[in-house]
């Protein structure tokens, strides 16, 4: 592949000097456009066949009326992931990153900065369950919603279980588990889903 030369032709060049350089430039431009793009003369000329994102650092500057898409080596998954950059939000809003591990799963909710976490727990009566932590899991800085459902291990006993949320925060939830038909605390297993974000 010929090198592109952005400083030709010069005024004192002879045509036989400039001609091969200009030809090389046209070839280089053709070769570059042929990467990711529909090339000259093709039906899809100028469009993107696909878009390859070598991972980038530092974060590119985004204008006020713009939004950026880029690749980054994720510290959570240790692999290239895609995300959006906004003008007013530092860092990246990832939309391909996720850890689908049972009990400690999380994923972005579409690239808007929201994260969804799902997992499980167990307890009796009033108790607390914390969201899993680890280097592969972002921490909520804000949390907006939780839903908790009883896991029925026995179809008859499970029919008599009930769970309520006392409140929740960025680290976990305070729950209350009881028999459904009696005002008695009861041991039970449950699953949950939580929505929040890790934005500043």
């Amino acid at each position, binding site marked *: 592949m010929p090198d*592109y030369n*952005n*400083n*030709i*032709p010069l005024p004192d*060049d002879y045509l036989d000097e400039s001609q091969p350089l*200009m030809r090389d*430039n046209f070839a*280089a*431009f053709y070769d*570059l*456009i*042929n*990467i*990711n*793009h529909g090339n000259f003369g093709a039906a899809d000329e100028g*469009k993107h066949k696909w878009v*390859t*994102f*070598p991972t*980038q650092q530092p974060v*590119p500057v*985004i204008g006020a*009326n*713009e*939004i*950026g*898409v*880029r*690749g980054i080596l994720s510290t959570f998954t240790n692999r290239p992931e895609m995300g*959006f950059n*906004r003008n*007013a939000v530092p860092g990246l809003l990832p*939309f391909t990153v996720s850890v689908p591990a049972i009990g400690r799963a999380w994923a972005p*909710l*579409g*690239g*808007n*900065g*929201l994260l969804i976490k799902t997992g499980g727990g167990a307890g009796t009566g*009033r108790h607390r369950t914390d969201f899993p932590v680890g280097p592969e899991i972002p921490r909520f800085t804000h949390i907006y*919603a*939780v*839903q*908790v*459902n009883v896991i029925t291990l026995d179809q008859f006993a499970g029919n008599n279980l*009930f*769970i*309520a*949320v*006392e*409140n929740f925060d960025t680290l976990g939830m305070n729950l*209350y588990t*009881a*028999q*459904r*038909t009696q*005002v008695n*605390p009861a041991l039970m297993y449950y699953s949950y*889903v939580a929505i929040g974000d890790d934005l500043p």
Partner: protein
Amino acid sequence: MAYNNNTPLATETIAATQQPIHDNYADIETLINVNHVGFNVADQGKHKFVTMPNQAAPGPLPLANEINMFSRQSTLTLRPEVCVRRNDGTVIEMTSSLNAAPGWAFTSSGLLLKWGSATALAADYGAGGTVIAFPVAATIPVYAVTLSVFLTTRYPGGVDLNRIATLVNVAAANFTVLASSRTLQAAPAGNVDFYYLALGTV
């Protein structure tokens, strides 16, 4: 110099065309260096990132076997949002959301999630339950179809109130929740707080 897409001309000498050709080459490299990995390096032609200046709403319409990704100023969030538009004209604002409680968010497939908290009234026990309207504002998308609603009863203070919130009915603009005793088939001793999470389409 501005890019000249009409040079060299057949009647021009090399002396006349050298400068516009030279300028065009420089302009090409300047343009390619925006967003792209430039000439003469290992990743040339690939994208460092893609910056999308806002397009006029609703956005460019793709051909039948294509899909367009672009940015436009959202009337919901009042900021640029990444959208996809299909050949049928539908647009998904895949980065739009209200990160708050109550809040909402689009998934990248166009599903709309809404969440929040509300109270079902004990007084509505004999009337089929309490109708809970989704929050309404110019900056909140509206469901065309509500697919499902999930409820979790709330016990403030961790006290067993012996009350339960149960879903009765789902509509596009609202859902109905019955407040009842948990252990009896009877009205509760008081109102029942709950959290909800809804999924639907626009």
